[in-house]
């Protein structure tokens, strides 16, 4: 087990290097001078500009800038943004926002997805199953952008059930609407996957064996079909959670939630290479950790791929 984890972490390191280096290079290659653009039309005194440039190592060659950024990240010495905000403070404020949103959205998604997926899978071709297939097809098809705006307009502006945007009303009120929409869009995929997986497992030979053993239908479903049908769904957790950060960029922009996604987007816009690389590293590390956790969980559930 420990060897398995160690091997995975070791394998992740070169990928992490390439990822951070690549992202940094892309930000570095962006045209224009970030500091000048930040200042807008106001002329900046040459001395101030030079000091700032030195602070952010902007005059150093690319590879030096990258190494300095990585050193800062690895030593936890994050510094400030171009605008002067303390990055560590920003992270302390923003990480909870994104976490709250993600956890709430996942709570909706998993409760709904597993419930409907299992129900439809067990009672396939029933009314619930058929409506689920249709509804999830539409939910998968509607662009996220349209769904977010429509929900915001309908429940925020018109019905006034939820705040339209921002986090002024705190947790959970401010997070309910975006989380509900994200959860609903994610539920569609999850429920379909769960259903497909159950329908496929139902035809497996070992289910016939279980019936031939004279087991009750409930026992066959819960002890034999479900544990096997859950396996592909476990893989889905990884893909799903890894996609959450990317999704947060769009949702946090639309619902104006000051989370990591918004931070990332602003940093890209302002060409703050250090912040972009920091957040990419954060996303990458969580991606690796989530995948590791999923693999371990998978091994627990499926003896065929157990890592000893």
């Amino acid at each position: 087990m420990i060897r398995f984890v160690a091997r995975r972490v070791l394998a992740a390191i070169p990928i992490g290097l390439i990822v951070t280096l690549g992202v940094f290079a892309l930000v570095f290659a962006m045209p224009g001078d970030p500091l000048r653009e930040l200042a807008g039309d106001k002329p900046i005194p040459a001395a101030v500009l030079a000091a700032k440039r030195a602070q952010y190592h902007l005059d150093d060659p690319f590879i030096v800038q990258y190494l300095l950024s990585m050193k800062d990240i690895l030593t936890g010495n994050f510094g400030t943004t171009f605008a002067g905000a303390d990055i560590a403070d920003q992270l302390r404020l923003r990480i909870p926002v994104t976490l709250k949103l993600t956890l709430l959205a996942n709570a909706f998604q998993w409760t709904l997805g597993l419930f409907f997926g299992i129900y439809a899978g067990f009672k396939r071709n029933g009314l619930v199953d058929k409506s689920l297939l249709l509804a999830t097809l539409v939910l998968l098809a509607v662009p996220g952008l349209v769904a977010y705006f429509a929900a915001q307009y309908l429940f925020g502006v018109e019905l006034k059930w939820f705040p339209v945007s921002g986090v002024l009303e705190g947790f959970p009120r401010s997070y309910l609407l975006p989380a509900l929409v994200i959860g609903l869009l994610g539920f569609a995929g999850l429920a379909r996957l769960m259903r497909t997986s159950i329908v496929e497992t139902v035809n497996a030979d070992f289910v016939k064996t279980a019936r031939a053993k004279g087991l009750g239908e409930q026992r066959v479903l819960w002890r034999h079909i479900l544990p096997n049908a859950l396996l592909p769904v476990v893989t889905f957790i990884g893909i799903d959670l890894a996609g959450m950060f990317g999704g947060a960029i769009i949702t946090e922009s639309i619902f104006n939630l000051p989370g990591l996604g918004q931070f990332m987007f602003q940093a890209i816009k302002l060409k703050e290479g250090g912040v972009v690389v920091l957040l990419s590293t954060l996303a990458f590390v969580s991606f690796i950790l989530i995948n590791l956790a999923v693999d371990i969980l998978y091994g627990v559930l499926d003896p065929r791929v157990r890592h000893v």
Partner: protein
Amino acid sequence: MSEVQAVVGAEAQELGDGRTLYNRELLRALLRKPQFVACSVLLLVFFTMAAFPKLFTSADPRFCELTKSRQSAADGHPFGFDIQGCDYFANVIYGARPSVLVSIVASFGIFLLAGTFGLMAGYFPGAVDALISRTADVLFAVPGIVLLIVILNSVPNRSIWVIVGVILVIGWPAGMRLMRSTVFSVRNREYVLAARSIGVPPLRILRKHVFPNAMAPLLAMTTLGIGGMVGLEAALTFLGVGLQPPSISWGSQFGVAAQYRDTPHLFIWPALFISTMTISFMIIGDSIRDALDPKLMR
């Protein structure tokens, strides 16, 4: 995006292995489905809209009277006016072009890229597979949207082709993995071994034996993903890293609509069009997947 791909991948996995329908057979099976026919007609309308917007509206989308800004529907202007006072119907019609172009070209391109890479990775284990798979690992490790934003943000003049190109660079790994795994299951089939044993060159084996028998899952994934491309283009434009004014697109209309919530028609019309289009793509993809599914045949 990747979520839809995961689901679609799972649902399409069973399509692997050997069963290819003849095109005519497939078409006949599809034409029996009313929802397929209806959605095809709708898409045809959208395609015509993208190619010849003048067939649908005589108004010039860029002819604007500021005094009419954000007014609702009037005679000859069924969708009202946008913030500049331009005819909104014409704007929505002209907005179809980028969506159609990006979605079709990007999807087709990804199909080709993912298919080729998947074939090579699956059929030539070793260095080729390692190179392709490790590159995919790297691309998987960063949220795709972050890469898209970072890259597109550094391109000063973004045309549709730049956007498509960047989507292609980022978007192939999921399809490649699906193709690779199907190729793995096909490559040691007897008909491939037989071809190899009589000395058929590898490229010909790939083209004539492996690809036709391994493409169904990827095809299903691609068709089901076209709708997602429409949404992706809109999202990028909304975030300000997609098409730039004066290009007319549904994504930029969303961006404007988001700032003027008291005039919902600015949002409703492009939303309606874009959703109809993505749902049509999805239903068509779903029908094709069903038609390709060997379990449902006979």
